[in-house]
């Protein structure tokens, strides 16, 4: 709690220094089309198993809608709320019965002044420059049980205060950002069938959102240096990992998810070299019990250094290609040490530890990988095609290939046909999902 007050005091001081609440300075900040906007989207997407025991059956089928309301005044004060509903005919959580959920995707009050940006409320705060794989994305989580390949759809936010300050009335290349987040979101991963040992009580997903309490607050800050031709940022975070992992309760033998506390430091950068855009991103994640001397060493995800180096360039007028090299290094890596007097419990713990290593991709100390994307868009953007590949190599390769075709018959309506093809070593994270290989269709209308 002390940290929260200190950070708040710093922010207020910065605000006073710049006298940023001046109406005259806020006057020329372009905020949008008029004072109030109502927009949204309606989309329906359907996924069909293409292989495995369920081949030919529906994996997920849903109709969803977002309603986005935002209003702001000349003084820079604003309000934004995005409501969302999802009506599932079939879902990953319940493959037999229809279900419905409604939620507030984002809802916050804001002040956008010259050099100052403050947002308080439910919000999504994505950090990181690279594409799809973001080591410095500390604050958000993703729901991978929503099969929609759009990161925007999967991303989850939380209740947070987000403050940015740019000196010299917003013209300095340096920006300071501070985020305080409560009841953090937790990623919902696709868990391969059979990865958790059978015959035990197993809570697949954590209770979400977690209860609002002072001990669950997260803090982060970053310094950004942004020039038109080059930018970089340095960031630090103290909170929790948003990727649940499993532990065994020795008393009840129940397997349940936990999200260990973690601190992290990182940074990112982007710049142009001739026809290429280069993006770099790296972070050292230091989860609780992630060192080799910790009590749960080998059972939960160890400290790890995640890095992405990416290049992207156009090919002709209509094509783009992107390549990213991924590298994850587990600083403290060791096999699980199981020392209970109960051999059955030991066996169970070992099984869960292996499941954690599979789900969170720490089966080995060094994890090189790569992504490749080739995209096409016609000049009028009526037709698009995209192939995305992510794979990990060395000691057992696994991969996901996602080809997509898009067609926009009329403005704001897009139809997409595609597939998610998992393959490779079935003991590796992506190879283990090979039975989830599916084809999909989506129709999305924006208004």
């Amino acid at each position: 709690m002390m940290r929260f007050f200190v950070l708040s005091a710093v922010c207020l001081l910065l605000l006073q220094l710049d006298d940023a609440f001046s109406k005259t300075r806020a006057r020329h900040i372009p905020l949008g089309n008029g004072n109030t906007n109502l927009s949204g989207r309606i989309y329906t997407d359907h996924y069909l198993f293409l292989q495995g025991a369920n081949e030919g059956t529906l994996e997920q089928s849903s109709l969803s809608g977002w309603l986005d309301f935002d209003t702001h005044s000349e003084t820079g004060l604003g309000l934004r709320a995005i409501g969302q509903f999802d009506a599932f005919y079939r879902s990953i959580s319940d493959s037999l019965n229809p279900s419905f959920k409604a939620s507030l995707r984002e809802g916050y009050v804001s002040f956008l002044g010259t050099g100052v940006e403050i947002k308080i409320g439910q919000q999504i705060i994505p950090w990181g420059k690279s594409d799809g794989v973001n080591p410095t994305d500390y604050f958000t989580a993703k729901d991978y049980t929503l099969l929609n390949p759009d990161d925007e759809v999967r991303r989850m936010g939380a209740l947070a205060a987000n403050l940015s300050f740019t000196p010299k009335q917003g013209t300095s290349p340096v920006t300071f950002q501070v985020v305080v987040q409560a009841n953090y979101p937790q990623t919902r991963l696709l868990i391969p069938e059979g990865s958790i040992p059978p015959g035990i009580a197993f809570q697949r997903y954590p209770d979400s959102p977690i209860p609002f309490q002072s001990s669950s607050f997260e803090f982060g800050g970053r310094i950004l240096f942004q020039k038109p031709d080059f930018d970089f940022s340095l960031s630090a975070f103290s909170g929790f990992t948003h990727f649940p992992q499993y532990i065994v309760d020795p008393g009840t033998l129940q397997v349940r998810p936990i999200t260990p506390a973690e601190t992290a430091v990182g940074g990112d950068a982007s710049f142009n070299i001739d026809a290429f855009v280069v993006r770099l991103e790296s972070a050292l994640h230091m989860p609780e019990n992630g060192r080799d001397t910790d009590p749960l060493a080998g059972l939960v995800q160890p400290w790890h250094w995640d890095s992405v180096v990416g290049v992207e360039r156009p090919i002709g007028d209509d094509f783009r290609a992107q390549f990213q090299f991924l590298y994850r290094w587990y600083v403290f890596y060791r096999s699980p040490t199981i020392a209970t007097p109960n051999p059955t419990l030991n066996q169970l713990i070992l099984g869960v530890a292996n499941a954690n290593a599979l789900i969170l991709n720490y089966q080995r100390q060094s994890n090189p990988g790569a992504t490749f994307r080739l995209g096409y868009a016609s000049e009028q953007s009526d037709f698009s095609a995209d192939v995305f590949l992510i794979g990990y190599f060395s000691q057992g390769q696994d991969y996901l290939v996602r080809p997509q075709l898009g067609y926009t018959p009329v403005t704001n309506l897009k139809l997409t046909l595609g597939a998610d093809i998992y393959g490779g070593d079935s003991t590796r994270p992506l190879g283990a999902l090979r039975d989830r290989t599916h084809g999909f269709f989506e129709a999305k209308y924006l208004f």
Partner: protein
Amino acid sequence: MNRKFVFAFSLLALTPSAFALSGKEIMTRNEDARKVNEFEARSKLITGNTKDSSTKSKEFSFWRKVQPDGIHNSTFTRFHAPAEVRNEGILIVENGSGKNDVLLYLPAYKKIRRVESQQQSGSFMGSVFSYSDIATPHVDEYQYSVLKEENCPTKEAAAIKCHVVEALPANDDVKERTGYTKSVAWVRQDNFMVVKGEYYNLEGTLFKRLEASEIKLVDPKGRKWLSHLLFIENLKTGDFTRLEFSKVKVNGGIADAIFTQQNLQKVN
């Protein structure tokens, strides 16, 4: 022959060459006539094809300001419609090297993306205009020659004489950024505004034709002019784009903070 006569004869003889403007002088005057220190407007970008009656429209706000060097501009656009591009923003910062910096904000991902130098000759928001067309050309980036004088070839300026000036990129960076190996401009002799332009691609083929109309004096004190309607056509594909400016306001005091990455991602 007395000295007075000789002097007068010399003047007469010299008049055509001494008072005819060079290509660079014409384009310097053109740049001066259109260089408004600060300019903001609402804009509409209408695209279509000559073989098809349907058109698509995009609406955006537009801010431009001359940088402290007095030559290069910074341009900021924020899109309002249609829904698929709402709140997208584009920041173009011209620089002296001939390689402009272009940054694109994608609100769906809450992220800024850089546009490569090569891509700047590509389509600006699905239109026939390129990013480098939206940024403005500068005199020092080209070598000029005057081809001829003739009546201006547009309806609005038909009664006015035009200089016809050919421009060649001064270096490969400009050629790469614009995608043009040559352009020809029809420049009005009364106010030095371009009314027509023809652009040649990297193969040397004529492929775009521009017409500028509704040219209005927007800053009487500084003698600055602005074309409120630009029509450009791709002669190979038949695609065309109309760019309309309305609610034009000049020198109204635009904050420098608008032309920053911080502002680019600042949407409610």
